[in-house]
């Protein structure tokens, strides 16, 4: 017996089904009954019943890409706030290899980084790494915070939402699975992007959202509505971050070119340092990839 429909809003303790179903995430079994443990939306697929939470805190997971901010610099590592009940650490070795440096001259408190979780220990502390393209310190832009459960909606099916926003606003956007989003572009476009990201967060469980956001952006940017296109389906599946890869590679090429140019123009200390880090990161990557690495860096979640 199934008591709920797909996409129905349910609350903790609510009985979703009796027998015939398997309990998935966001549910628990009470004798033969499956109940919701969260406020969220039902996802029914192949007799598996899950509840997708409306809100939740980010729990670090190995392999996730996250945006973190340096909260402390220690002797051989950085403490990183990853917008979670659990903090992350980035070891000097991960960032610099065997090179000895003053850590706060590399990343300082308040710096915001794009990182990958390489491991999560038994107390849920996240061990962070910079292995992967596009990883490292952000320069400029703004940080927007959303509930981590809304990240898949912000990205959209095959990146439909995020790519549409990028195209319309001409902003670079990087989404961390911990609910932090980095946006960089024209000052006004950054703010507009912040605004629509918050609309997406608020209305994530409504249908036809991509078109709504598109209309909003078109009105704000072009002053007119776009030509009508088909409605988009509601998304439950965790999208792959595949679409990030090209984007990030492109960004990195641009960034490298820009840095090089800047460096030629003025031999600024900071830039030097940044280059050094980039260099080190690349070296490290090469090192890693030559060790016949197990996975493609950015391809999967």
């Amino acid at each position, binding site marked *: 017996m199934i008591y709920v429909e797909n996409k129905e*809003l349910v609350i903790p303790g609510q009985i979703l089904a009796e027998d015939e179903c398997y309990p998935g995430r966001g549910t628990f079994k*009470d004798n033969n009954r499956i109940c919701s*443990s*969260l406020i969220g939306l039902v996802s029914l697929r192949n007799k598996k019943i899950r509840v997708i939470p409306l*809100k939740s805190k980010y*729990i670090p997971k190995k392999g996730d890409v996250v945006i973190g901010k340096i909260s402390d610099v220690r002797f051989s590592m950085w403490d990183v706030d990853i917008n979670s009940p659990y*903090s992350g650490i980035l070891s000097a070795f991960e960032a610099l290899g065997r090179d000895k440096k003053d850590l706060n001259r590399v990343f300082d408190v308040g710096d915001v980084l794009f990182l990958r979780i390489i491991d999560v220990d038994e107390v849920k502390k996240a061990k962070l790494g910079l292995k992967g393209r596009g990883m490292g310190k952000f320069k400029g832009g703004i940080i927007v915070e959303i509930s981590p459960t809304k990240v898949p909606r912000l990205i959209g099916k095959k990146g439909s939402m995020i790519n549409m926003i990028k195209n319309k606003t001409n902003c670079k956007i990087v989404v961390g699975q911990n609910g932090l989003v980095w946006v960089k572009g024209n000052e006004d476009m950054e703010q507009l992007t912040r605004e629509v990201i918050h609309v997406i967060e608020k209305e994530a469980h409504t249908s036809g959202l991509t078109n709504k956001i598109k209309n909003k952006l078109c009105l704000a940017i072009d002053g007119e509505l776009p030509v009508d296109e088909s409605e988009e389906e509601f998304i439950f599946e965790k999208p792959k971050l595949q679409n990030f890869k090209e984007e990030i590679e492109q960004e990195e090429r641009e960034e490298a070119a820009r840095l090089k140019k800047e460096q030629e123009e003025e031999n600024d200390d900071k830039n030097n340092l940044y280059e050094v880090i980039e260099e080190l990161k690349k070296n490290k990557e090469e090192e890693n990839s030559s060790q016949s690495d197990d996975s493609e860096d950015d391809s999967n979640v």
Partner: protein
Amino acid sequence: MSELIREDGRKFDELRPIKIEAGVLERADGSAYLEVGGNKILVAVYGPRESYIRRLLEPNTGVIRCRYNMAPFSVDDRKRPGPDRRSSEISKITADALRPALMLESYPRSMVDVYIEVIEAEGGTRCAGITAASVALVDAGVPMRDIVVGCAAGKVSDEIVLDLSEVEDKEGQADVPIAIMPRTGEITLLQSDGNLTEEEFQKAIDLAMEGCMKVSELQKEALMKKYSVE
């Protein structure tokens, strides 16, 4: 049962008017506002989050901490700000009442903070606080087995009645606040203050549980109202 009419015109099994609203604060992870009779209660939830009070944390699950506080202006004679013995006890039993419903195993070494502010008090604030706190916990996205709900029954003029007002609490012979997990009917809070026979006690529990079930529906409505679309 008699046709007793109470000082405020209610029948013996009638609740005071209740209003519950979920998600009323910006900063808190979850929040709720509740009015029942003359009570006004505001609850905020933060967490699961890191805590500096390491000794309170547990290695295999998250923990809950409650703070019940009465505003100085919530009662007739101004209350001195800060905790007293009564509010410390209520804080403790509130945490105890909510804990059985929490499923914090996936958040080891974390803390959920529940802040209950009594803005105005008119009898039955501990039950109202628990009821509001549960809604705020759901609003915060905290995983739970059930939405705990509180309600009191008591004895006034030798009658067992539901949901005592301030006057009834003062003049009555007994007050039995309880909290339950409505799906299973399990009791997570029980206090009893006053004189009851065994039969009266049973009657009081039955009545309070009925009251809880009614309030439970209002909790659900408040959450549905906040989050359902169109």
